[in-house]
């Protein structure tokens, strides 16, 4: 079970908070591979802002965890270092791309793990491992030193055991960093779970048509009943153009990924092929050898989408439609305190189903947060066999503190009495 790419054995003082880091997060002097052959020996001479901040606050780094290379995948199988297995059941997916983070938190080798969430990559694995997953408001955590995939949607995410830990890490990681132009100052969170009485819970109309596995649907129904009993008011909200997200998200993702990966050319760092003599040989062979299949697919798709022929109707149009979706989402958020949904429409899928079944619905619930830059937090709910259901909660951008306090209150309802 290849959870760790680089396991450290640090001295852990009593009461210290241990953290592992997805190998997309640069750690000075410690190998950072992006789970790829391309960077298998890369030792960054700098650390990501989020790492610097946590180190400075005394969090202990226990190692760099495995994931789908360069953040592309839904099962943490696209890695140069051996697939990550689901610690609950090795025959099913651990989720991706931050599968190593979720597995590490589940098995207890660290109290929390930093991953990245571009389109659900922290939340789906967290759901599959029955732990808490969080994607912040875009811009809350600086991306300096985080290996980029899709710049306009990349965030550093947190996988942990409870909302309180997420909140604590949030406070220790936020703050605008001039080294990331897209980072912003966000409010500090005061952890104080709310009373759920009178809380307006938004139910997104467009989620109703998502095909859910019966166990997930049943779990979700129970969750809603519990919430109702706790005194929430349900509000029907709508994001009419949300369905276009299914096209817009992959278009923007592939385009930005293509461009963010052009720097991996074998010349200044990373894998350089020994085959060939000309510069074209170096480029071609280094990239062919260094990148996994999924990465190559995405690069080629992105290159095509950004071509002069397609740019206007693909990427440019995608940006405009995304803006519409975002405006509609903000209007929907204004009508409620929190929006909920299941995190994933299925239980962890069988590994043997990969390549056979259509798994495209995996991100049906998690994608919207990526599209609109809002925070999303998912918590485990009821046991479903070996696994648990998972409830996703979202608020408007920069209302992360409010999200924590609502989520903590909901979390109470599912706390297992020890």
């Amino acid at each position, binding site marked *: 079970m290849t959870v760790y790419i680089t396991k450290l054995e640090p001295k852990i003082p009593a009461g210290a908070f241990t953290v592992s880091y997805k190998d997309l997060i640069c750690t000075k002097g410690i190998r950072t591979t992006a789970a790829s052959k391309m960077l298998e020996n890369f030792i960054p001479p700098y650390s990501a802002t989020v790492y610097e901040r946590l180190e400075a606050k005394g969090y202990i780094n226990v190692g760099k965890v495995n994931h789908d290379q360069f953040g592309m995948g839904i099962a943490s199988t696209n890695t140069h270092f051996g697939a990550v297995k689901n610690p609950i059941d090795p025959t099913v997916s651990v989720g991706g791309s931050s599968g190593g983070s979720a597995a590490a938190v589940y098995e207890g080798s660290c109290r929390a793990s930093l991953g990245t969430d571009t389109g659900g990559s922290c939340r789906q694995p967290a759901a599959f491992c029955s732990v808490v997953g969080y994607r912040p408001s875009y811009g809350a955590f600086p991306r300096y030193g985080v290996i980029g995939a899709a710049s306009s949607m990349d965030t550093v995410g947190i996988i942990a055991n409870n909302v309180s830990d997420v909140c604590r890490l949030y406070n220790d990681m936020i703050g605008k960093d001039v080294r990331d*132009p897209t980072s912003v100052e966000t409010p500090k969170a005061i952890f104080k779970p709310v009373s759920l009485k009178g809380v307006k819970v938004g139910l997104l109309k467009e989620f109703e048509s998502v095909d859910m596995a019966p166990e997930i649907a049943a779990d979700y129904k129970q969750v809603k009943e519990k919430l109702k009993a706790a005194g929430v008011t349900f509000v029907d909200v709508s994001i009419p153009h949300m369905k276009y997200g299914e096209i817009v998200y992959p278009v923007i993702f592939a385009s930005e990924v293509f461009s963010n990966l052009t720097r991996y050319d074998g010349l200044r760092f990373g894998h350089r092929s020994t085959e060939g003599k000309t510069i074209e040989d170096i480029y071609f062979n280094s990239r062919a050898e260094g990148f996994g299949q999924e990465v190559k697919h995405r690069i080629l798709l992105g290159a095509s989408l950004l071509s002069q022929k397609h740019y206007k109707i693909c990427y440019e149009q995608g940006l405009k439609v995304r803006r519409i979706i975002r405006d509609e989402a903000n209007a929907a958020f204004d009508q409620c305190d929190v929006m909920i949904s299941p995190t994933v429409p299925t239980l962890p899928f069988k590994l043997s189903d990969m390549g056979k079944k259509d798994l495209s619905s995996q991100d049906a619930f998690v994608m919207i947060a990526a599209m609109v830059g809002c925070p999303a937090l998912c918590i485990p709910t009821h046991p479903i066999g070996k696994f648990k259901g998972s409830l996703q909660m979202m608020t408007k951008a920069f209302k992360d503190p409010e999200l924590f306090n609502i989520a903590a209150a909901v979390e109470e309802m599912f706390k297992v009495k020890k």
Partner: protein
Amino acid sequence: MSENKNLVRGYEVVIGLEIHAQILSVSKVFSPSSAAYVSTAKPNSQVSYIDAAYPGMLPLINEHCVYQTIKTGLGMNAKINRISRFDRKSYFYPDLPSGYQLTQLFTPLVGEGVVEIDLKDGSTKKIRLERIHLEQDAAKLVHDLEPGYSAVDLNRAGMGLMEMVSKPDLSSAEEVAEYVQKIRSIVRYLGTCDADMSQGSMRCDVNVSVNKPGRPFGTRVEMKNVNSIRFIQQAIHYEVNRQIDLIEKGETFPQQTRGFNSDTGETYLMRLKENAEDYRYFPDPDQLPLEVTEDYIAAIKKSLPELPDAKKKRYIAAGIPVGDAVRLVRDKEVADYFDIAAKGRDVKKVANWVIVELMGYLNEKGVTITDSPIPADNLGALVGLINDNTISGKIAKDVFVLMTGEDLGKTPHEIVEKRGLRQVVDTGAIEKVVDKVISAQKDKVDEIRQGKVQLLGWLVGQCMKESQGKANPAMLNEILKKKIGI
């Protein structure tokens, strides 16, 4: 119409220029590494992880480069766009570490403007500017360091560039030369670029086409990497004739990019446009839109120095001939020198002395005017001594030479007094000299009286010699002629 003047073998020439000017700043446009002397610094000594496009690094806009670009735009009467964005232009080449260049295709920082050029006949022509946008320079490749290898020097990677795109308003190689000179002047006045074409801090791409008058524009050919004004003119002359030759033969040619061989004076094909790369332009998602306020722009506008055109107009109004005015304002250092020298003096004469005598001397010695051995007020004083008849023009030239050599640092007044160079204006003294010479040269005088007037000059020379050059020439002439009786 000035266009008709510029016909070449009956064809109109249409030229547009793209000028890349390296921005004078402490740091590069998107990274904190040093932007100083990148062309001469030790290779790879001024490179940040951002320049080298390391994983997780994000470009950071340098406000001073934005400031410099706005300042340049204002100096060309251009519209400043309050909101602009940066776009990624993607291609693979070892001089481009990130695999994309940050530029501004869709929304430039500076919009349309106008640059006025000075033509040789004293007239002016307005050349319209399409835009100025901000972008990154590429690294430098060195091919002769080791056989079989090319070396990459990243010092220049990420340097700030202002790309100034003109509309196709230029009609001749001479106009292009004047345009480049004017751009050079303006950016040097503003301190936004040192415009040293030999060091590569200013580079020009030239787009050329020809057409018969009244017909649409012909096929455009781009010429790249022509790195001096002289070569640009040569390249244009060659290319225009090459295109006309083809057209006259009934041949067509495709849009293409050509280089210029300065040894042979010929352009050569580099690549066809149809084989040009698809650069996959899209707005950089790592950058926020660049927003500048009206106040910010106004503050820059207020800080602008007097620019060449305004200075030129002021000089012409003061009576300086157009050609001299153009020559004086081209370099701010020369204009500044002239302003000091001409203060309270005969501006036309000072202008002439600065341009002809001083610049002549400095150019011969390869010295810039800032290092002139003669300070500006001393030159002005010298001209003053001519105007108040203290010395003659000829003696002044001698004093000038002394001021650059033996009497370096002394004022002209000091030199005149020390060496007794004062002009002789006393009629009696001059008459004495003339009488002496006339009596010594009786036969020459007779010849002059009989009509050999050309000998008069020689006789004047003899009188001058007799007076050790100190006689006032005009007075000497008059008295001599009177005494001879002509």
